[in-house]
C-alpha cells in the first residue's frame, strides 16, 4: 500500500490550488492512503480546507511560529521527520515545492522525481525533460521512499467533497536560524490567478511599453482572464516577473490562451503546451506561434486588440 504525504502550499490564509492538484496526482497511485501536512503558524483554517479535499484521509496540522513564512531550510527537517511513516512525499512543482522538496529528498537520501506529469506505477512516472521536448518514463530507486514534485499543468484539482480527520502534531526537529525571511513584494491584483485561471491573455515584446501593455489588461478584463507575458516583455520592464509564462516562468494550462505580439519561441511554447485552445495575434504570418495556434489572426495588434475587446464587450 502507498502511504502518501502531500505538503500543502498556502499563504497563511488559504491553500494554494497546487495542493488539490498534488492530491489528484497522489490519487493516481494504486492503493493510496493520502495525508496532507499543513505547516503554518496557526493552521486551523488551512487544515480545515485541506480536510475537504476529496481523497484525503487525514490532515496533519503542524503549528509553529517558525512556520509563519515557508522557508525551505526550516520546513525540510520537519517534513523529513514526518516522512518516516510514508512511502511517498509529494509537493507541487511551484517555486514553493521546487525550493523545498529537493532539500527534503536529500535529507531522506533519495533523488527527487521532478515534474511528475503521469503516474504509471508506485515508483514509475512520466516527466518532461529538455523543456518538454522529450518525455521520459522514469523508475525511482526500488525499496526507497519516493519524493516528487507534481507538474501543475498536468492535473486538475480534486473537488472539495472530502471529510478527512485533522490531527495536530508536534514535530521534534532542530530548526536552523541561518535563513531569515525579509519581505515579499507580491504584485497585488484582483485579477484571476495566472496559474489557475481558465482564460489567459499574454502580451509580448511587440507591446513596446508598459503603457501599451494596458491594452492587454483591458482585453483580459473583457474576458475575465488572467494576464501573462513573454520573457521579452518582462525583461523590458513592461510587467513584473511573476507574469512570465514559459520554461522559466509559469507553465499553465488554461482553457483559452490568447498570445498577442508573441513570436512563439520554444521556451514560451513550453509554458502553454497544455492549453485547451490557443489564439495568436501577430503581424508576421510566419511567426512560429501560428504553428501551434488553433486560431490565428495576422495583423497589427494595436488595431486588432481594441477591436477584439470591443467585440467581446458587445
Amino acid at each position, binding site marked *: 500500500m502507498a502511504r502518501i504525504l502531500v505538503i500543502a502550499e498556502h499563504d497563511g490564509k488559504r491553500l494554494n490550488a497546487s495542493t488539490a492538484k498534488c492530491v489528484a496526482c497522489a490519487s493516481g497511485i494504486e492503493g493510496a492512503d493520502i495525508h496532507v501536512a499543513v505547516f503554518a503558524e496557526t493552521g486551523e483554517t488551512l487544515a480545515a480546507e485541506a480536510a475537504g479535499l476529496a481523497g484525503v484521509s487525514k490532515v496533519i496540522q503542524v503549528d509553529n511560529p517558525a512556520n509563519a513564512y515557508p522557508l525551505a531550510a526550516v520546513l525540510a527537517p520537519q517534513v523529513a521527520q514526518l516522512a518516516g511513516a510514508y512511502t511517498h512525499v509529494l509537493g507541487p512543482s511551484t517555486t514553493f515545492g521546487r525550493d523545498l522538496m529537493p532539500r527534503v529528498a*536529500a535529507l531522506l537520501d533519495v*533523488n527527487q522525481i521532478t515534474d511528475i506529469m503521469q503516474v504509471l506505477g508506485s515508483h514509475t512516472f512520466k516527466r518532461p525533460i529538455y523543456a518538454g521536448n522529450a518525455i521520459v518514463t522514469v523508475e525511482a530507486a526500488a525499496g526507497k521512499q519516493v519524493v516528487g514534485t507534481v507538474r501543475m499543468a498536468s492535473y486538475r484539482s480534486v473537488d472539495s467533497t472530502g471529510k478527512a480527520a485533522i490531527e495536530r502534531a508536534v514535530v521534534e526537529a532542530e530548526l536552523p536560524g*541561518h535563513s531569515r525571511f525579509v519581505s515579499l513584494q507580491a504584485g497585488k491584483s484582483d485579477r484571476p490567478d495566472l496559474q489557475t485561471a481558465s482564460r489567459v491573455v499574454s502580451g509580448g515584446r511587440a507591446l513596446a511599453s508598459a503603457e501599451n501593455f494596458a491594452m492587454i489588461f483591458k482585453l483580459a478584463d473583457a474576458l475575465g482572464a488572467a494576464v501573462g507575458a513573454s520573457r521579452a516583455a518582462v525583461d523590458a520592464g513592461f510587467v513584473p516577473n511573476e507574469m512570465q509564462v514559459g520554461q522559466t516562468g509559469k507553465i499553465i494550462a488554461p482553457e483559452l490562451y490568447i498570445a498577442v505580439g508573441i513570436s512563439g519561441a520554444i521556451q514560451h511554447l513550453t509554458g502553454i503546451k497544455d492549453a485547451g*485552445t490557443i489564439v495568436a495575434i501577430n503581424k508576421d504570418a510566419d511567426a512560429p506561434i*501560428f504553428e501551434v495556434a488553433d486560431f490565428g489572426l495576422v495583423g497589427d495588434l494595436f488595431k486588432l486588440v481594441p477591436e477584439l475587446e470591443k467585440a467581446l464587450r458587445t
Partner: protein
Amino acid sequence: MDRILVGLKRVVDYNVRVRVRSDGSGVETDGVKMSINPFDEIALEEALRIRERGDAGEVVVVSIGPGDAQQQLRTGLAMGADRAILVETAAAPDPLTCARILLELVNREKPDLVILGKQAIDNDNSQTGQMLAALWGRPQATFASKLVLNGATATVTREVDSGLEILEVDLPAVVTVDLRMNEPRYVKLPDIMKAKKKPLDQIPLSGLGISMGDAPTVKAYEAPQQRQKGVMVPDVAALVAAMKDKGLL
C-alpha cells in the same frame, strides 16, 4: 571572502531543438552543439563581478562529467575564473550524487559561497543546489535574481510565483540563479589564450571516495504530443465567431 565555487554543467546548447531518436533510445545528441548550462554562465558572471568588486579572493569553477566538460571549464576560465576542477565520471551523475561530490569539494575548498544554476536545461531537475545545502546544513537561496553581500550575510532576491521574495542568509550559503540576475560577458580571444595556462585539476570520482548513487532509471523516451496547426481567421469578427463556435465565449 576567500573563495566562491561555481558549478558549470556541460549541456546541449539551448538553441538546439532537441529531438527524441526515432527508436526511442534517447535524445539525439550526436554532433549537436554543447555549451555551459545558461544558468551556470550567469552564476559564473555573478561570481566574477563579486571578485572584481574586491569582495572575493578567487573563483573556482567545477564540472562533473566526462572529459569533454574540459571545454566548458576552459570557457569558464576564459570568462575569468581563476581555476577549474573536473570531477570525472562516465556520465553526468544524478543530482544527489552531484550534491555529494560538491559537498566533498566544499569540504576541501572551504568556499564562502557556492553559486549554481537554478536548473540544468537538459534534465530540468532543479535539485542540486537545494540538495547540497541540505547535506551541508547551510542556507539555500534558490531562483535568485539579485545577490547583495554584507559581510557575514547575504541578502538575496528570489523570483517566486507570487513576486519577489527577499531572504537574508548567513554565509556560507548556496545560491541558485535565475536568468535575470545579470547578462554574462562575452569571451575575448586573448582570454581564451590566457585560459590555457590556468590550472585545471582532473579528479576521478573514485579519488573523492564517492560512488555513483542510485539515480532514477529511464525506462523510455518519447516525443511530446504535438499540437496541430489550426486555422487562420481573416478578421476579428471571424475570430469571435470561431471562439463562440467552440464554446469558449
